[in-house]
């Protein structure tokens, strides 16, 4: 067993192994290559969860891509339990008039995605598409068209392939269900 998780986290089962992920990412890359042929495409990865997916997906797309990343954080706010969302790392590439594909690790409620879309919309791209490694359609609170996704999930607590539990487990090469609640 891997030493990546240390002693604090236990894996109950591997949900998607390396080979399954690799094959699916290639399929997604091929779909995107076909759909965006002839367009100026900017791939935007959402930090940090999409790191590995972003890296593998971009190398599976046979197009002249521009790559960028975007990151979020929250500022504590005494008036609420949740704080205030802010962008910690904005995109640097000019996306005006270009086809943007947002790459996420997982879409659950869709709130982050909705925020991302409205933020990126303000920069006037030609189009915005979503590509998520994982999607939980039962928990989506927004009517967001997720055109490309790797796998559907339910209410599992997952780590690996970019996803973490208290910043641990991102570098697992597979996606696993944890026995400790996130």
């Amino acid at each position, binding site marked *: 067993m891997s030493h990546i998780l240390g002693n604090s986290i236990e894996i109950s089962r591997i949900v998607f192994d390396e080979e399954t992920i690799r094959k699916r990412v290639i399929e997604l890359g091929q779909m995107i290559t076909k759909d965006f042929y002839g367009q100026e495409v900017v791939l935007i990865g959402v930090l940090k969860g999409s790191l590995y997916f972003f890296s593998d997906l971009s190398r599976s797309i046979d197009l002249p891509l521009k790559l960028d990343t975007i990151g979020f954080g*929250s500022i504590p706010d005494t008036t609420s339990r949740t704080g205030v969302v802010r962008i910690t790392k904005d995109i640097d590439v000019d996306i005006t008039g270009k086809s943007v594909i947002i790459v996420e690790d997982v879409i659950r409620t869709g709130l982050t995605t909705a925020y991302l879309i*409205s933020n990126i919309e303000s920069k006037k791209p030609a189009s915005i598409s979503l590509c998520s490694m994982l999607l939980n359609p039962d928990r989506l609170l927004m*009517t967001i068209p997720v055109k490309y996704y790797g796998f559907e999930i339910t209410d599992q607590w997952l780590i690996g392939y970019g996803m973490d539990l208290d910043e641990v487990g991102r570098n697992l090469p597979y996606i696993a269900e944890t026995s400790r609640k996130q």
Partner: protein
Amino acid sequence: MAIITISRQNGSLGDEIAQYLSDKLGCDIIDREYALSNFFGEQSSGSIERLNESAKFFLSSSSGSDITYKDILIKHITELAQDATPGHDIILVGLGGCVICANCPYAVNIRVCASEDTRTNRIARRFNLDYESARTSVETADRKHKRFVSVLFEKDLSNPELFDITLNTDNSSVEEASAAALALIEAKNRRAKIAIETKEVGAIDHQAEAIVFKNDTEAEFAHILDMYEIEWLYEPKTFPIEYDAEGNIKMAFSPDFYLPKFDIYLELTTMEQKYVTIKNKKVRKVREMYPGTNVRIVYKKDFLSLVERLKRFC
């Protein structure tokens, strides 16, 4: 909202604001010139000239009928207001539009004003006049505007109750003042769209009521939506879902939030399972009785995990 009326003082930048809004919204402007050419087309050029000069002449009958020019004006503007739909706006400049459209639920009545000194300076610069001549021009125009509305509709144009919003351009640019108007137009458009849909499907519209959250969870959820800059309306609509034999409403459902951009209603449930079951039943009924209505339940565990993730950040 379907019709935007703009009442403006001479030199207040009202025409410029009308043009800016027209460009932004992609809609037509109906002004005095348009009205005189199109509303009274069959009248002689002499009558048109008098209509342009005299407010009182609007009270006289058009040639060969008992209908006054005022009636014709009201008829045309009312028709325009009825034909326009939310998202397909019309801008009506002057002509007492704020009075004619006062009872039109989807109208936005805008007043554009500025101090006499500011307006005089603008007129002086624009027409290369000395200050005194410009001031006389401003005073004359003010009197004429006031008289037109007073003679035709017996209303005082200085009454703020005639307007939804008053824009003072003393210290605001056309763009700044227009931004305030656009925000109101957009919000009213959204409300009108929901009200029209509500009327069509037989639901109850209570968007105009003040927001009073029933519990802390709702307030926190509203805060979360704000954090993500997701526009929301609180309980904008009630869906009747069961009627008795006499047609009285036996059961209704008012989802907690509506997200206009995503056209989805969200109902929070953070209570016991038995209430969750009832809510699930209500949501099913809404989906059956109001096809095309998107309703989602936010379960307690969803909400708590959302709060948890936001604390650590997503």
